[in-house]
């Protein structure tokens, strides 16, 4: 497709290697360092959020109250959601973006490297603040990760104030990170690389970053209104003053729905890189993939109220949001079709990244189908706030977003570390995760359809078997992530030297670079020549 020339000398503006000691990580402006920190941070948060899931599933192992009191159970579900969304999935993708975008578009670094560092270092402070609420008087927020008013205003514990400021910090971090990605992609592509020659991962992040810049300020605005209601006697979410608690839901979901695409589009990008490599074919329908991404992003702004069907809204509104939501299935279907068509008649091999990618395609589609069921307003009245919803969004987030990140890590780890991971450990990690997550989340469809409500620490006896199954699956899934932690450490410490292109027929600028990667790459941009 394209050929490029490569010069690795630079003009001695800066040192060639990283600085020494711990402070290197604190002061760094290098996209590789920052990407590594994001990924490690994401993994740590994934494990912390996972421990909270353990508490939830342990309590739900049997009917009746056994381990924790209901208030603490609510704090666990709330914190689990917040940490996984804002601490694990989003930083995980930003980590992949930091590592890969400059390498894939031939840029010397991110466009605004100091701001990049700031975006990252805000996060540990933000999550310190969020986690500290667990130790405060009145406990951590227990109003669910969607923090509906008035639960999160009139009836909230004092710690809600710190929750609000933590959200503010995460928002600032995300906005800056997203701006950096947009600027990098617009301004720093290698000469000759047009927008329509960008790798699909870069495209997916361009769209995601646009969504982030558009909706994170809305989240900041809504938590600011909460802060005003709590501390400054305003009445945004109080009908007694002419406001409306439902207003909160509208603004929250105006942020929240694009947010769910923020968590999945980069995974689409990762999978679109991996599947062609291991099918030894070009990605089927590049242009339609790009248009589908754009269509999904635009539609995501006009579907938010499908989260609120049961709150009561005019029939015209219900119909509009129902049809608009179902329309999203079209571009998503285009993507799934293209991935399958890419594999069709390819010479497939199933190394670990490909296993995760194929599982992504299949299981994300399961989550997508349950999403279409939920979009149908009259039936949603039945599903609302049941475990069916929990099953749905865990299917798009765990084998969707999380598998996307993990697949990307396996795919690019040999390039980042210069070492090859242990393939059989990788496969073991995959199969344990695959079995574990299906065991956890598939039964939730059944108990949800049978009427088991979410966010409840106790349940009726008829749900016992499936819940026990789900809990065992969760313990299996959670524990098997330790295999992944071990695998990464083992790769870094004692992995075998990786080849420059560890995957047969992998394409893209990142594979033209030597392994191990120099600390600074593409200080002179490569020139893309079109044949």
């Amino acid at each position, binding site marked *: 497709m394209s050929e490029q020339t490569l010069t690795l000398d*630079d003009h001695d503006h*800066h040192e060639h290697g990283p*600085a020494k000691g711990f402070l290197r990580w604190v*002061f760094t*402006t290098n996209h590789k360092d920052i990407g590594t920190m994001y990924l490690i941070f994401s993994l740590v948060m994934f494990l912390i959020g996972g421990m909270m899931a353990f508490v939830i599933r342990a309590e739900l192992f049997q009917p009746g109250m056994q381990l924790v009191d209901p208030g603490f159970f609510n704090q666990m579900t709330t914190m689990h959601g917040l940490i996984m969304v804002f601490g694990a999935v989003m930083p995980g993708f930003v980590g992949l973006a930091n590592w890969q975008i400059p390498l894939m578009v031939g840029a010397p670094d991110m*466009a605004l*490297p*100091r*701001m990049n560092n*700031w975006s990252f*270092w*805000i996060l540990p*402070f933000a999550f310190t*603040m969020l986690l500290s609420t667990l130790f405060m008087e009145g406990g951590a927020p227990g109003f669910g990760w969607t923090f509906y008013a008035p639960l999160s205003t009139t009836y909230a514990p004092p710690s809600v*104030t*710190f929750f*609000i*400021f933590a959200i503010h*910090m995460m928002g*600032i971090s995300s*906005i800056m990170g997203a*701006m*950096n990605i*947009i*600027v990098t992609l617009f*301004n720093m*592509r290698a*000469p000759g*690389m047009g927008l329509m020659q960008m790798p699909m991962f870069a495209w997916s992040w361009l769209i995601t970053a646009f969504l982030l*810049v*558009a*909706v*994170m*300020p*809305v989240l*900041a605005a809504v938590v600011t*209104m909460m*802060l*005003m209601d*709590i501390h400054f*006697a*305003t*009445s*945004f979410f*109080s*009908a*007694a*003053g*002419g*406001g*409306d608690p*439902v*207003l909160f839901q*509208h*603004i929250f979901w105006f942020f929240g729905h694009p947010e769910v695409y923020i968590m999945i589009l980069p995974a689409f990008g990762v999978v679109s890189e991996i599947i062609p490599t291991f099918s030894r074919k070009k990605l089927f329908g590049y242009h339609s993939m790009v248009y589908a991404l754009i269509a999904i992003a635009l539609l995501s702004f006009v579907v938010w109220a499908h989260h609120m069907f049961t709150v*009561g*809204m*005019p029939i015209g509104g219900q119909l509009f949001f129902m049809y608009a939501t179902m329309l999203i299935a079209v571009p998503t279907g285009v993507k799934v079709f293209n991935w399958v068509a890419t594999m069709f008649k390819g010479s497939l091999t199933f190394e670990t990244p490909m296993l995760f990618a194929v599982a992504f395609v299949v299981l994300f589609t399961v989550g997508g189908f349950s999403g279409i069921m939920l979009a149908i307003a009259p039936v949603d009245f039945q599903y609302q706030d049941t475990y069916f919803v929990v099953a749905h969004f865990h299917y798009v987030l765990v084998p969707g977003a999380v598998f996307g990140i993990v697949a990307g890590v396996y795919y690019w780890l040999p390039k980042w570390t210069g070492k090859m991971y242990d393939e059989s450990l990788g496969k073991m990690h995959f199969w344990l995760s695959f079995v574990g997550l299906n065991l956890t989340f598939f039964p939730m469809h059944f108990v949800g359809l049978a009427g088991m409500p979410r966010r409840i620490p106790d349940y009726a006896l008829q749900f016992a078997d499936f819940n026990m199954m789900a809990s065992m699956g969760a313990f299996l899934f959670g524990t098997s992530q330790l295999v992944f932690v071990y695998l990464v450490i083992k790769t870094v410490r004692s992995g075998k030297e990786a080849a420059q292109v560890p995957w047969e027929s992998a394409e893209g600028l990142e594979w033209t670079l030597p392994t191990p990667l120099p600390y600074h790459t593409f*200080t002179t*941009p490569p020139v893309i020549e079109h044949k």
Partner: protein
Amino acid sequence: MEHSSNSYYVPDQSIWPIVGAIAMFLMLGGTGLTLVDLQTADHASQSSSTIMYSGMAILIVMLFGWFGNVISESRRGAYSPQVDLSFRYGMTWFIFSEVMFFLAFFGALYYARAFSVPWLGGEGDKGLANMLWPNFEATWPLLTPPNPEMFQPIKEVMNPWTLPLLNTVLLVASSVTVTFAHHALRHGERAKIKIWLAITIALAVIFLYVQGYEYVEAYTNLDLTLNSGIYGATFFLLTGFHGFHVTLGTIILIVLLIRVMKGHFTPDNHFAFEAGSWYWHFVDVVWLLLFLVVYVF
């Protein structure tokens, strides 16, 4: 795509981002402690406000340090046209994010006027809500909230054709003068830049003074407060955040004036000036919208 022989400037390690992160943590954490103090006791403890103020102080130090770095790099010519373009894109998207921030508040105002207040008054699909406060009558501006014991009624709202109109004139004029300053800069007429920029700053400061005066008036004579229901809430949040942005913009303009006096900026290299004036036009446009939907209609 720029295809220059200069490589893109990638700065070395920097201390400022981590300082900024710590500052933000202390500032917001301290503010949180202060607010919770006020919520649970009657007064803020010494330590809470100390943490908050130290955060602010560190943030100011960080801003000086970081911008100082950028200015000196810019002046020694480290930034290629490509880097300059990165800054331009960055500023554009930053302003876009600010637009979205204000959009949420405008959306809240729209929702209150079009839906929640009429519903509470008994109109439309959810008019059933009227049974909560059967005596409530929906009007806009909403002078008497549904529950006047919880949220105090307003005597009168601000007349748009007095101080707010004056403020509109001031802000529009300042947008024009900042453009004159920019033209002067492009032609290298330094004396003129200083005059036009100084006039802009003067207009901005008068605007802020008038806005402050209006708030005092609202609280003392009109009973228009944060606590007076959804009208007061949206009024103060929109004008308040706008005023905060004008304050930031004014500080930016003052810094630009100081830099002009120090001899910074050339006719073809003055991104900071342009970014400042973009920001200023942005607060102006927000005001125009705000003047229309908050005050006039």
